[in-house]
Structures are given as structure tokens and as C-alpha cells.
């Protein structure tokens, strides 16, 4: 690999993804890319009424995709807002490569790409104009920004409609504009909050692949409650509930925890309620031969067969352990 060319070829293989594939992306040579580290130490956020959305949250992140999973109201968006320098933490510190973000927020903002859960656009601007505006706000060079915007509009499949006012865009199209703006400055830290909301299945798959490819030498934080998104892209997973970190592990480790405790069997429809009373049901599917029930249990239900756990099983189990102190 020559230092003069900004192209590397990466070959990736993931057991839970779409299999092996080759992707070609323009990344800087590894020698030129500084290693990045994001540290979150005892961070808490208190809202009025003494409500803590986040409490004593600590995490250290290195390049890769962190999937941030948790139920509604767990504190994911609050954490995202703190990391994106939108909200100030009530306690604790966030450091970027050793620099305290509270003291020098611009050190982080300069390398930050942020896709909020809810964001707006200027309806009378076109996608091209809106991205040009945000490129200027981010301080990008005009020529480089124009080239980058061209590429990004192709990546998010909006090149054909780049000149149309954003006011006429559908929700999914606006979301793709949001994805493009997050990537404008070639960020070292990419924070995406519910990024696949509003995307159709094909676009969702594309976005997952995009995230996987981007993660090379940067930190990507993906917050979602869609487990399959995390399953497809994350190299690490953080489970969060009630503002606290429940677990931080690799997908393999989390899967390992429920290995041998996931069962599936077929029952008549009439028995479903009774089964739900006894077991933690992680999935049901009605088929011609009855209801296929998937449960988490230490002991195998009568007639059940063991199945390979999914991340959804691991997620439900970890939350169950956190809430009740016992595994499902």
C-alpha cells in the first residue's frame, strides 16, 4: 500500500452479517490516521425535578462500531447529546483523545459527525445547498466540500434529486440528507441516533453496510432499539437501562451468555398464554403446524429443542438480569 494513495482494500467477514464481501473505500493510510479514544467517566445528567436521565455512566471507546441498545427512556439520547456536545453533563467528564470536552469542545466538534434522532432541514434549500451550508458551518474548504457533497449524494442515493427543495422530500429522503451531513467532515467520531428510522428495508441494509465500512479507524456510536441494526454492524455493544450501563461486551460475549438457554418448540395457539405465564418468550411465529415459540430458560421446556441464540435473546436476558437480578 503506497502512502501516496488514499485507498485501502479491506476484506471483512462477519458471521452475523451478509457474509464476506469486498468493499472499496477511500480511507487515509493507517499511518496518517491518529488513533482515537473517547472516554466517558462517571457521567450523569440531571433534569429539572431531580430526574436523573443518566447516572455514573462510564465507558471507554476505541475505533469500531458501538451499538447502544436500551429500552425507550433508558438514557440513550441523553448520552448521545452529551457526547455530541449538545447537552452539558451534570457530573463526570468526557474526554476526546485525552482532551476534556467541557474545556475544549471544539477539539471534538471538529472531528464530529452527528445525526440526531430529530432534526430539521431548511425547506426552501435543496439537498445540495443545505449540505453546502452545513459544510461552511463546519469550516470545510469550498472545493473539498463540493467534491465531498457530490460523493455523499451518490452514496445516499439523492444525486438525482439534489436540486429539489427539501420541503418536498419524504421522511426517508430527509433522513438520508441527515446521514450525508453527518459524514461531511470525514468524522473521526460518528454519532448516529436511530439512523434507520424512516428508511425502507433496502436503504436500511445499505446504511448498515455503510456504517460497517466507515468504522475502520473511527469511532461510530449507533444508538437504536432495533436489535437487528446493531447485530449487523456493531463490534461492541453497550446495554443501557434507567440511565445506567447494564453491560458492555462484544456481540460474541453477549451471545455466549445465553448460549444453551434458548429453546424453541411448537405449541397449539390455545397454549400460548399459558406458556407466556411460565417462560420469557422472546419470539413467536404462527405457522401451519402451530405457534413456534422461542423462549429463554435455564431448563428446556418439554418437547423443546435448543436453538442458536440471537442478539435479541441476549438483550432480553441482560435486561431481565438487570431488572430482577435473575436470568430469564
Amino acid at each position, binding site marked *: 500500500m503506497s502512502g501516496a494513495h*488514499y*485507498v485501502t482494500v479491506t476484506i471483512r467477514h462477519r458471521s452475523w452479517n451478509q457474509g464476506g464481501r469486498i*468493499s*472499496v*473505500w*477511500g480511507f487515509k493510510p493507517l499511518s496518517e490516521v491518529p488513533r482515537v479514544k473517547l472516554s466517558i467517566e462517571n457521567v450523569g445528567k440531571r433534569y429539572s425535578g431531580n430526574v436523573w436521565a443518566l447516572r455514573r455512566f462510564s465507558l471507554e471507546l476505541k475505533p469500531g462500531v458501538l451499538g447502544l441498545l436500551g429500552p425507550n427512556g433508558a438514557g440513550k439520547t441523553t448520552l448521545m*447529546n452529551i457526547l*455530541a456536545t*449538545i*447537552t452539558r453533563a451534570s457530573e463526570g467528564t468526557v474526554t476526546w483523545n485525552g482532551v476534556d470536552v*467541557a474545556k475544549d*469542545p*471544539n477539539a471534538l*466538534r*471538529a*472531528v*464530529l459527525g452527528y445525526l*440526531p434522532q*430529530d*432534526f*430539521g*432541514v*431548511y425547506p*426552501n*434549500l435543496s439537498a445540495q*445547498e443545505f449540505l*453546502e*451550508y*452545513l459544510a*461552511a*458551518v*463546519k*469550516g*470545510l474548504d*469550498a472545493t*473539498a466540500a463540493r*467534491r*465531498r457533497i457530490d*460523493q*455523499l449524494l*451518490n*452514496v445516499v*442515493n*439523492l444525486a*438525482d*434529486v439534489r436540486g*429539489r*427543495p427539501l*420541503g*418536498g*422530500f*419524504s421522511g426517508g*429522503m430527509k433522513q438520508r440528507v441527515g446521514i450525508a451531513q453527518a459524514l461531511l*467532515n*470525514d468524522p*473521526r467520531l460518528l454519532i448516529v441516533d436511530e439512523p434507520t428510522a424512516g428508511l*425502507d428495508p*433496502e436503504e436500511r441494509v*445499505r446504511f448498515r*453496510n455503510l456504517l460497517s465500512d466507515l468504522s475502520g479507524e473511527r469511532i461510530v456510536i449507533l444508538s437504536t432499539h432495533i436489535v437487528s441494526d446493531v447485530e449487523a454492524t456493531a463490534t461492541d455493544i453497550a446495554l443501557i437501562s434507567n440511565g445506567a450501563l447494564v453491560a458492555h461486551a462484544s456481540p460474541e460475549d453477549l451471545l455466549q451468555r445465553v448460549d444453551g438457554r434458548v429453546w424453541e418448540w411448537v405449541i397449539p395457539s390455545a397454549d400460548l398464554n399459558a406458556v407466556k405465564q411460565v417462560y420469557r418468550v422472546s419470539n413467536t411465529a404462527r405457522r401451519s403446524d402451530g405457534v413456534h415459540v422461542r423462549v429463554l430458560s435455564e431448563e428446556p421446556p418439554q418437547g423443546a429443542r435448543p436453538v442458536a441464540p440471537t442478539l435479541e435473546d441476549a438483550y432480553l436476558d441482560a435486561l431481565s438480569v438487570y431488572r430482577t437480578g435473575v436470568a430469564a
Partner: protein
Amino acid sequence: MTSGRVLWHLVKADFLTRVRRTSFLVTLAFAVFLGYQVFAGNIVMQLDDYRGVYNSAWVGALMGVVTSTFLTLAGFYIVKGSILRDETTRVGQILAATPMSKSFYTVAKVLGNFAVLAAMVAVMGVAALAMQLVRAEDRTLHVWTLLSPLLLYALPAMAFVAALAVLFETLPLLRGGVGNVVWFFLWTGLMVLGVGQSVTHGGVVMHAGYFRDFSGMPTLMGQMRTTLLQVDPHFHNDFSLSVGSMKPHKQFLWTGVQWDGAQVAARLLWFVYALAGSLLAAVFFHRFDPARERFARKRNAAPERIAVVEFAAAKNLAQADPWTHRLTPLESSGAKNRFFALVAAELRVMLQGHRWWWYAIAGALFVACLAAPLSASRGGVILAAWIWPLLIWSQMGGREARYATGSLIFSAPHALDRQLPAAWVAGALVTLATGGGLLIRLLIAGDGRGVAGFLVAVCFIPSLALALGILTGGSKFFEALYTVWWYTGAAHHIRGLDFMGTVDASGTPVVYLGLTVVLLAVCWTRRRTQLAYA
């Protein structure tokens, strides 16, 4: 559920949504402030050099008239926006999917507006009571005499305002900033219409005049004049409701409004007008149809076309091989201080969506400033040139909140020390460009004082817009305040209020330079608190 219950819950939800916001407290604070100004004698009703003894009749009449004049002007701006709120919160789409009729909705919105305005009237009622007791010129309390002007002058006027606010929101042309400007002139017209009627009849108001009397003031004037003429036959027939320190030196006893059937009917008729306005609003109400809402009506955005675009994009998606697209890394991802590029970007956002005719008229005003005689250019044409960009200035500072782009912009580096100044410079450039014809004339004439006044105005106007935008998160307050200020101060060349310095005698550039500095400090401070980390 009966219609009455549905209506009750709609109005209740609307009212609670408003009263639980800080802005409602500000609204009530404004009513309290106004009440205090009356109490302190800063708002005075006088006939020649007379005022009434502060008994229930005079205090009630004074509060009633102040409410039906000043508070109706402000009240419109306060309550306008309830349909827009349902639109932006998307509650409207949920309501639109219910069997509720359009007229039902608009009537409910008018009632919600009216409830807020009535709360302000109630504050003025309490202020009236306090004023009579504290002033203590006559402590005998006549409740009906005290409160009837508020109930029969102020409340019907407020009902009409509540309906107009909803009607304006349903009319595409008037729902935005244009409507805010139009309301000021419409309000002026309503005032003048009533007063004119009174003058025409030589101080005696005919019954027919009641029906045009929006504020109740002309009717009141007629009755007070009749009373005062019995006390002082030399009374010159001057009546004024003024803000300032002019104190009348004489007193007379006034016993209150003589309500007759026609007069009461005329006042209640404003409720009928309000109902008519509500129903008219229903005709234009878009029922949250996305194709007819605010943004979808723009050019090139017909729904059929969007569907085609979406389909085309989906088709491309299926055909495209996304992995062949390459993202070339940026030479450096660090943020640079490209201030002028940012100013240009802010300028572009500021001018977004304006059609060719907007620029044509701005250009014509520039030329008119240049071609007209200097006195006419400075004293007249510049007024037009600097009301024309009102809706551009009014977007400043509040755009991020209005379009929910704050999280994108405030997470960028140096939002405080680059983006904010860039937005201000862009606003100043718009001001400079639209009034530039006058600047050239002043420079040619070597009028240093005029140039100074012009440049201060170029700095002051965007500072005011930016500060109010940042403070309120919207455009309405600036649109209302600027229009009133422009009309009362600049257009009438009132010294101290003439921020444009339209004539030497009225210009006070040093004062406005100081005010500009204060406003910029407010911008900086407030934006700093909006950012988690400045």
C-alpha cells in the same frame, strides 16, 4: 361523546398547552406591566387638561379602553400560531384523522385563543380593582361600573382578535410574517374607523356608529365629552389616550358608561363577528393535508411529483451498486476559519425561497433611494426600502429553533464565535444592500451625520432581529415590534424612536449605537447559554 364535550376537551387541551409554557407567564407579565403603567399614570386618558376622578367608573373605563386598544394589538401576536403548533407537533394529523369537522376545529381554536386573551383581561380587572383602592380618590366600589367596560369593551374585541388570529393562520398569504405586518395596519384601521365615526358626529355617537366601534373608545369619548361639556362649556373636544408623562391638571366626576340596549347589542355583535370569522377560517383551513401545508405548497413540490421522485430514487437504489461510489477523504478534517464562506452561506440561507420579483422590488427601491431628492430619499423612500426585507431579518436567530436544525449547527465547531457573527454580518449586508442607494446619496452630499446615522441603522436593525430571534426562538415578536417601531418612530420622525435617522432632528445615532452594543451582548450571552459548551 357529545359535541360539547369534544369542544371542551379541545379547548382545554389547547389552553393547558399554552398556560404551561413560560411564554404564557410572559404574556400575563405583559398584562401586569400594562396595568401597572396605567396605575403609575404613564398611560393616561384625558380630555383637554381633564381626567376623571379615580372612581370605579373612570378606572374601569380606563382599563377597558387600554385593554381593547393596546392589548388587542399585542394579543393577536400572542395567540397567533395555535394551528401552526398543531402542525409542527403533528397533533394536527391525529386530529385530522378523527370525524371532527373543520368548522369545529377552527371554533375550538378561536375559543382557545379567547381563553388566553380573557386571562389577560382578568389580570387587567384585578389591576383595576387594585388601582381604585390604592389611588383612594373614591373608595366606593361599584363592581359592575368598574368591570363592565372590561366585559363589554375588552372581551368582545378580544373575541374578534382571537378569530382573526385563526383566520390569518388559515390563509396561506397571511399565516406568516406578512400577516403579522398586515395585522398592525388592520388594527390601526380598526382604531381609526371607530374614532373617525365619533369625530364625524361632533362628539355625539349615533347608534349606527356603535357597530363599527371595535375598541369602544369612540363611544366612551362621546359620553365623556357630553358629561364634561356640562362641567366646562369651554371644553375643546380633545380626547387622548396617550403613553408618556403628560399629566392632566384638572379633574371631573364621571359616573360611568350609560349602557343602552343598542350599545350592548353592538358590543355583543363582535362575538358574532368572531363566530363568523371562525367559520370563514374553516373554509380556508387545510385540515393538515400535507399537500396544502406550509412547505408542500412551494414550487416543484406537487405531491404527484414527489411520488415520482421517490419512485425514481427507489429504482436507482435497486439498480445502483453503492460500493462503487468512493468517498475521498478530506485533506484535513479539522475545521478552518472560513468566515467569509460562512457569511456567504448564511446569506444564501437568509435569501432562500425568494422569487425574482422580491429582488426586482428591492432593486427598484435601491434605485429610488438613489434617484429621489436626498430629503425624500432619507425621509421617505428609505422607509419602504427598510420595511421590504422585514421577513428576511425576522428569520435571524430563530431559524435554528423554528426548523429544528440547532442540533446540527450547534454541534459544529465555533458555533458561537463564527456562526453567530456570520449570521449578523449577513443581516447587516442585507440591510446595507437594500438601503445602499441612500448611502451613496449621503456620501455624494458629504453628509457625515447622515452617513453615521445610516451606518448605525445598518448595525441596529440586524442586531434587534438577531437578539429577538435568539430570545424568542421565532420571528413573530420582531415582526410585530419592528413594524410598530418603524411606523411610530421612523415614519413619524419621532426623536428618540427614529432608529433610521430619517431627518437630522429625529436621529439619535449615538443612542442606537449603544443599543446595538447592548443587543449584540444579549445575542452573545443568550446563544452562549443555548450551547452546552461555548
